[in-house]
């Protein structure tokens, strides 16, 4: 199958600091990839390069065979949707207005239904007339996720399944809503949408993705299934955490419980 999103030998430098050093990544349709790694590894920078925000110093990104630079902002928005880490809204738009922004100029019954469905999916069904500035951080993030889902659906209606880029989509959410976000992303992937998500929780990463890419110091450390990637060796090497990986008994899938790290913490052993 032809890859949807291909990044080749990406280099990003800011001043003397190299943020990404020769990073390559190829993603097929319907593929779900979790980007993990320590703070400052270059995950957000890579996502910004993939979304077209940041033009790399060297290397290129191709979306459906065309370089990102050859798309205008509006065309690009029809092919990929992005959820940023934190969005603050300057004026008291209602939640419904914010979510509807994902539809661009689109109006009509179909858009109304999309907005309503997206609000229900992020469990904000009764919040549509509330001003977004009065919502908690997690609720605001869910509203923006709904907006991104609407944008993705509108793009899908004209161009087919697109690309969904998520920068820490679960950061401010409680467990219930973290799982909702994972479920929403997986259901989009089942329809052929390519998903890239930055996650810090390795267990969520394993739950969401069949492929995990570990970034460390601006380079790809490892790239493979959760089974191959989430190992004691990787955690020790990249995060400096020892003896944290266990296996779910029946399934054999890895989970991370930094039990051994208790030794390093102050207090009772």
């Amino acid at each position, binding site marked *: 199958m032809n890859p949807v999103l291909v990044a080749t030998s990406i280099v990003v430098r800011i001043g003397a600091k190299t943020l990404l050093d020769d990073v390559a990544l190829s993603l097929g349709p319907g593929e779900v990839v979790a980007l993990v790694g320590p703070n400052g590894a270059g995950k957000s920078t890579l996502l910004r390069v993939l979304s077209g925000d940041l033009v790399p110093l060297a290397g290129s990104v191709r979306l459906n065979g065309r370089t990102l630079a050859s798309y205008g902002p509006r065309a690009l928005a029809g092919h990929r*949707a992005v959820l940023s880490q934190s*969005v603050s*809204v300057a004026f008291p738009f209602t939640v419904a207005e914010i979510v509807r*922004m994902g539809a661009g100029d689109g109006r009509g019954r179909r858009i109304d239904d999309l907005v309503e469905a997206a609000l229900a999916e992020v469990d904000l069904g009764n919040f549509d007339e509330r001003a977004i500035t009065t919502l908690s951080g997690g609720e605001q993030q869910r509203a923006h996720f709904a907006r991104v889902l609407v944008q993705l659906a509108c793009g899908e209606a004209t161009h087919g399944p697109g690309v969904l880029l998520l920068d820490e989509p679960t950061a401010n959410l409680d467990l219930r809503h973290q799982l909702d976000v994972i479920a929403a992303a997986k259901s989009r992937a089942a329809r052929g949408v390519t998903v890239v998500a930055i996650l810090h929780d390795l267990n969520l990463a394993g739950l969401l993705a069949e492929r995990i890419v570990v970034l460390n110091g601006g380079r790809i450390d490892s790239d493979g299934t959760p089974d191959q990637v989430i190992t004691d060796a990787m955690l020790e090497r990249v995060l400096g955490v020892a003896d944290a990986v266990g296996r779910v008994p029946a399934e054999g899938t890895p989970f991370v419980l930094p039990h051994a790290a208790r030794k390093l913490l102050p207090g009772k052993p």
Partner: protein
Amino acid sequence: MRVLVPPVLLVVLLLAAAVAATIGAAGIPFGRIAAAFGLAPGNPALVDRDWLVLWSIRLPRIALAIIIGGLLAACGAVMQGLFRNPLADPALVGVSSGAALAAAAMIVVGDRYLSSAGVTLPLEALPLAAFVGALASTMILYRIATREGRTSVAMFLLGGLAIAALANAGLGLLVFLADDRQLRDINFWMLGSLSGATWAKVGAIAPFLVALAFVLPFIARGLDLLVLGEMEAFHAGVSVERLKRTCVVLVAAAAGAAVSVSGVIGFVGLVVPHLLRLLIGPSHRLLLPTAALLGAALLVIADTFARTLAAPAELPIGIVTAVIGAPFFLYLLLRQRALLGP
């Protein structure tokens, strides 16, 4: 509900204009206004005199108030969208001062060198100079306040303060250099006034309002999305750089045109969009045109006060708008306290 707001504002504007036409040094009741327009029978002696007062003094002044109020309020609304900040007003953050400085410099310096060369200053020179001055201050302010697509409220207000202080220092310097006639002109920039309104001035700035009305629908969607941040607006399909350039030029053209005929009139651009957001919500599609309507109505009312409160003398209208607007600004500032830190 919301769809009723534009027609209601239009009625308010027409009523304000009609009432303003009756009030002045020579009171002309509604009946005589109708007669002067030939819509009703009237005393022929009065009709001619009334018509002269209306046509050559009162109507051009009302028309000027409508255009300038519309320009300033729409300019404020666009600025607030561009800077993602409800505290933006062209007069408050130095854009109008920059325009006034450039216009005054044109009067003093241009006059001195051009008249010694035997050339008189063309009528278009002042609006053009005011536009360039407004453009320069807006661009500098943007550079100061915005970093990596995020606008800092504190940097915006303090940067604006610095620009205004610098422009006012420049104006002070020009006052020092100016002769008596130029001094009167410069004083007029600094306080703001609609006196001396003529149809020629109305004709000179009316195209700016028409152009603004034409462009506003095209930037409304972009400004809505810009509320999310520059990066997020780009993700959603906005050509952010083009939108920003358009807004900066619009702000400079509107503020420059207004300042070039009426001097610095503050707070219209601050108060009007804020009141409207309470009424119709923050979406720019409705906010931008209604801001122009309400701004026009408010300035007609403010100017009527300016020319009657101290009759037969006239108050500069900038003082009237400041008396209403400055407390309002303080109120907004207190509500925004959280954004500015403790």
